[in-house]
């Protein structure tokens, strides 16, 4: 369980993280989203006791960050870019990490074998890390972060630089961990966060903007209902009919296509209104031919863009 309470971190006069409070339940996978420079990495560095917070505190399984040594025993951390010693081979590197954690030699051997199997590292155990691809290095980092069987895993962009197959493998791995371990991971790949995380937290400029399940967040961002309709001909009758039966309707966009058809975008501020049904009935009543009708749902991308001031997510 991770609980942050008004965490702040200042660099000089600027705040990298400001008054950040949140809670990650035991066994939950929490996604940390935000544009570059939003304070994701700084937050993670504070939770792993690498940077002391300027003010505020966090507890990890009931231990305050000031009890740094005990906290670090509970936490497994994969920093951004998965740093490791490139001169060592995978086996030697994992053994070193185990020894640094004070695992007894026999346990260390077992754990290295177990984790390298879980992360699919068996065939590269005796290759130098510098010879490995980015994906394998990332997996080495992940294996290293789990070697001492931590209760919490903090993963800073665990899937950057991986190919789609590897991304899916890592996702499966993280999903498998859910339930046993508390996971906090950051990413700016939104579909991934949606697929892996139980809950999502969006931060921007060091401040919490939203927190909830992916479904909750998209619902929250949806606002109104947007309907894309393509009608044979001009469709003016249909529009008039619809406007007269449906108050507050807004025709946001109208475009005549080359073949004489017209494409409309209808918007209604109430997301639960029966705009699609009304459009169908209006088409029947005016004998207009509907060629296409599509309701647009807000995606996590919209939520993200809205909450982080339209800055792009890459």
């Amino acid at each position, binding site marked *: 369980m991770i609980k942050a309470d008004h965490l702040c971190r200042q*660099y000089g006069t600027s705040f990298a993280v400001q008054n950040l409070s949140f809670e990650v339940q035991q066994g939950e996978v929490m996604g940390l989203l935000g544009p570059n420079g939003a304070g994701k990495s700084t937050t993670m*560095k504070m939770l*792993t*006791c*690498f*940077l*002391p917070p300027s003010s505020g505190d966090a507890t990890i399984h009931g231990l305050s960050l000031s009890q740094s*040594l*005990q906290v*670090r*025993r509970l*936490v497994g*951390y994969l*920093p*951004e*870019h998965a*740093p*490791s*010693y*490139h*001169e*060592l081979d995978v086996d*030697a590197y994992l053994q*070193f*990490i185990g*020894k*640094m*954690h*004070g695992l007894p030699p026999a346990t260390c051997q077992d754990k290295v074998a177990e984790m390298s199997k879980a992360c699919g590292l068996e065939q590269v155990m005796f290759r130098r890390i510098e010879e490995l691809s980015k994906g394998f290095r990332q997996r080495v980092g992940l294996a*290293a972060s789990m070697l001492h069987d931590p209760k919490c895993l903090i993963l800073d962009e665990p899937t950057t630089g991986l190919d789609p197959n590897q991304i899916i493998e890592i996702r499966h791995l993280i999903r498998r961990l859910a339930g046993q371990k508390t996971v906090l991971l950051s990413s700016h790949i939104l579909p991934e966060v949606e697929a892996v995380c139980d809950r999502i937290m969006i931060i921007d400029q060091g401040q919490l903007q939203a927190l909830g399940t992916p479904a909750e967040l998209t619902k929250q961002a949806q606002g109104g209902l947007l309907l894309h309709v393509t009608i044979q001909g001009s469709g003016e009758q249909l529009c008039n009919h619809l406007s007269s039966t449906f108050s507050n309707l807004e025709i946001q966009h109208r475009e005549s296509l080359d073949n004489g058809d017209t494409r409309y975008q209808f918007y209604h501020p109430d997301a639960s209104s029966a705009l699609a049904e009304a459009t169908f009935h209006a088409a029947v009543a005016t004998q207009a031919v509907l060629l296409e009708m599509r309701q647009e749902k807000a995606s996590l991308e919209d939520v993200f863009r809205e909450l982080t001031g339209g800055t792009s997510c890459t």
Partner: protein
Amino acid sequence: MHVIWALCQKEWRINLDTPQGYVVSIAFLLASGFFFGSNLFLNGQADMRHWFAMLPLLYIFFIPAMAMRLFADERKDGTYELLATMPTRTIELVLGKYCSLMGHLSALLLLTVLYPLSLALLGDVDAGLIAAAYLAAWLLAASFSAICLYASALTSHAMVAYIVGLILLLSLFLLTQVAPTLSPALQDVVVMLGPINHFQNMLRGVVSLADVVLFMALTIIFLALSWFELERRRWR
């Protein structure tokens, strides 16, 4: 303790597995062999005074090279973040790195024991004198290593760490060289605190407590400075 040992093993493994460790070692042994052999046959005496007198100069160029990557590279590669987020104390990291460096230097000094052994075949060597000189050489290496480790903790660029280490050691050396031109009061200070002066004292075969304490004090001061430097960076 396990942290210090694990770090030592890791550093030695990197030194043995990659060129960076043994290139420096071979260069050191070549240079030291040159200084040993160059005057031996001119003088025709079975002693190592000349070699020991040159040793500080070798240290000045080689110890910064052995120490430069210890913290600088960890920071540059981001692995320092890994070390610092493991359940380890900063002082253990400093001591682990220091012990690995001292292990490396001790191994090199041990290899040079071949020189007095081969001298013993040629003539009578004063074993006591040479033992005292080796102790002095080891103590000087200990304090120079601490200074260079500190230089490495200051920066994330190994080259900068090398230059800073070199400048620190060279200024200690030059201070001793220019001492005769200084005012008597300053001369006294240099004689009292200059590690090279104390090294030269010990080469005479006299191991005094003052010499040993000075080397140990220098070592402890610079290890503490490295520790402070690493701790301080977390708060910036």
